[in-house]
């Protein structure tokens, strides 16, 4: 048992931490958000240069050969910076799906393009009423010669507005919630059958509603048997956003404690008041419990047994959801009015944390999964 980073991981952490502290302060972030894409192409090129865009890919695919721990290091730093770029959509979800679901030649074609920064991806999975059930898929895939045609509506597709290619879950067989019959399809975003409506999300990132009307597609792997790969990649993404959440929670806590020590009322720093000290201690406990479960999630995200993996990742998501909500609300409350303003940083962490809680299943959803799965021990 060892929670320390190895030398390579420490190097990675140093360089990502530096990048974020040098290039991603709150004012810079604001500027990136006002750009045409709502994020920074320049930063994207920086990530490519540092090797972050190929972090989880094999070296033969232009990657770094990193595992879940390396992703955790990067995502935690991105959480501190409130990073806007489509890293989750392109590298974790897009790259992950290509690695887990597709054939060798498709990987050799697509992964190097992600690593170099040329190709942006988005995962079009959510449907209007599917909520968090990955197997609830009404979008249809129909064979068309060697390829496929996709028809259906996908919603809240993270960074779906800028992606060059879309990874779409669609049903080639079976009923609405059958696990069998779901395939994963690659659709060119410029296909005439694709209509996109991009928009900002509450936390200042981007998403899109996307309609597919007989859009041309190729299947990644088995056109009726992708659900296992989709679940695995979503588990990896949950581990990644847990780490992002820990980065955000850490910042909220640090900023709050600093604020309590400097903000004066009644002639003294408000941190002199025991009630506020105790509440910031409760925030710390929530943060450390979340950090612990993120480490657990990181290790368990590569667990081969799907049921064990699912239970562990759901447990982690519950902890991150609860800790995040507690820390977010307390951050705003302990600051007072200043935290209600757009111009102050903490409110943006609070909003990001709220979106992370909803992403890939909210706290109640995952609590139900854990409680139906039997003991965690």
């Amino acid at each position, binding site marked *: *048992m*060892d*929670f*320390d*980073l190895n030398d390579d*991981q420490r190097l990675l952490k140093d360089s990502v931490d530096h990048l974020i502290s040098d290039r991603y302060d709150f004012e810079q972030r604001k500027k990136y958000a006002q750009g045409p894409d709502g994020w920074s192409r320049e930063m994207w090129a920086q990530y490519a240069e540092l090797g972050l865009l190929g972090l989880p890919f094999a070296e033969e695919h232009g990657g770094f050969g990193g595992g879940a*721990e390396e992703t955790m290091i990067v995502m935690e730093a991105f959480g501190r910076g409130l990073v806007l770029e489509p890293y989750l959509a392109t590298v974790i979800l897009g790259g992950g799906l290509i690695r887990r679901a597709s054939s060798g030649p498709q990987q050799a074609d697509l992964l190097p393009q992600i690593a170099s920064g040329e190709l942006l991806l988005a995962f079009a999975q959510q449907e209007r009423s599917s909520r968090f059930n990955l197997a609830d898929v009404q979008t249809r895939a129909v064979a068309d010669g060697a390829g496929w045609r996709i028809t259906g509506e996908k919603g809240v597709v993270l960074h779906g507005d800028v992606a060059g290619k879309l990874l779409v879950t669609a049903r080639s067989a079976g009923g609405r919630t059958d696990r069998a019959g779901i395939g994963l399809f690659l659709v060119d975003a410029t296909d005439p059958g694709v209509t996109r409506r991009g928009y900002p999300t509450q936390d200042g990132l981007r998403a899109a509603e996307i309609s597919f009307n007989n859009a041309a597609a190729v299947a990644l792997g088995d056109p009726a048997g992708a659900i296992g790969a989709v679940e695995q990649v979503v588990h990896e993404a949950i581990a990644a956003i847990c780490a992002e959440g820990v980065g955000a929670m850490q910042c909220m806590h640090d900023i709050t*404690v600093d604020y*309590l*020590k400097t903000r004066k009322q009644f002639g003294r720093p408000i*941190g*002199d008041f*025991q009630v506020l*000290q*105790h509440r*910031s*201690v*409760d925030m*710390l*406990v929530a943060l*450390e*419990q*979340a950090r*612990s*479960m993120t*480490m*657990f999630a*990181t*290790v368990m995200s590569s667990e081969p047994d799907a049921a064990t993996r699912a239970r562990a990742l759901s*447990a982690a998501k*519950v*902890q991150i959801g609860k800790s995040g909500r507690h820390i977010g609300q307390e951050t705003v409350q302990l600051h007072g009015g200043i935290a209600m303003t757009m111009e102050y940083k903490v409110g943006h962490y609070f909003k990001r944390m709220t979106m992370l809680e909803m992403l890939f299943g909210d706290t109640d959803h995952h*609590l*139900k999964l*854990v*409680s*139906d799965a039997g*003991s*965690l*021990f």
Partner: protein
Amino acid sequence: MDLGFTAEELAFRDEVRHFFRTQIPESTRRKVLEGQHLSKDEIVESQRILNARGWAVPNWPVEWGGQPWSPVQFYFFQDEMQQAGVPGPLAFNTSMLGPVIAQFGSEKQKREILPRAANLDDWWCQGFSEPGAGSDLAGLRTKAERVGDTWVINGQKTWTTLAQHADKIFVLCRTDNTAKKQEGISFILCDMTAPGVTRRPIVTIDGGAEVNEVFFDNVVVPYENLVGQENKGWDYAKFLLGNERTGIARVGYSKAKIKRIRELAGLELDGTEPVINDPKFREKLATVEIELKALEMTQLRVVANEKNRAKGKPDPASSMLKLKGSEIQQTCTELLMQVVGPYIMPYQPEEEGRNEPLIGPDYAAVAAPMYFNYRKVSIYGGSNEIQHNIIAKAILGF
């Protein structure tokens, strides 16, 4: 980062697990797991079995019977002990007095006290809290006056756990009234049979009497019963209280509790359905399990971090373990009551030689008393509010 354990560590875990489950009497372990009180003889027997194996005082210096274990080995020892329902070696002897004597006592004290404490030949109790000195322990007023070659002790201690079994007591006494309150305290040893020592049991809300008041009325003890230096007792007390580290979370114990709750929830019927089939109950149970899993990981992080810390300095993170660990233990007692349902209501105190059968299922009688009793865990050993203060000061720098 590696959450796995080495083959040697796992072999150690298996060794202690096997020992606990084969050498400690099953009747004793079952009582612990079911939440019943142990007799003095059962506690003594269990500690002597551990001591014979060299495991009663692994935390002591090696020359006095300690083990040169790694933090991970200590973790497994405690976790397996708690999961198996083995009563821990008596804390007053092994984690409180023993380390203080080994560190600050005279050679004579070490020779005379330590082996007997390890084997539970002497049962020690702790004379710290007073009616007017709880969280503000340094405000204590029990007085020891030097008279020739003796100390004369006058005053009152309270919350003295298991004093009814005790042969001896270590007492924090005020020996200098003029100094700052922390600087006038001495650490003195006393026989419970000394003339002038009286004990009165305190009946707690669960109906039990595990704690006591102890009165000192002109009790005379030899001067050499002083531990370390005069007026340095507060330092020794802090050392003693800081010695309780990761075990304070009682993760292994809560794991055993949850396992039992799950079992009973499979037996106990609501109509024709076992309680475990109720999705709301299952979600409550899952909520505690998730918190416990997170706490287990936090505890392992504290354990792993011990190698980076100065030896003997308590990690303020252990205050977090205590906060969370006590909440979880208390929640477990609530869940157990919920499983049992209306049959928590009959009041059936434990009795020797009970003739009539228990009312309700045999696991029902302890459920409510355990809930009442466990409110103590967020009060003793530094209340959770004090733990908040410690973290605020030591970690957050307020």
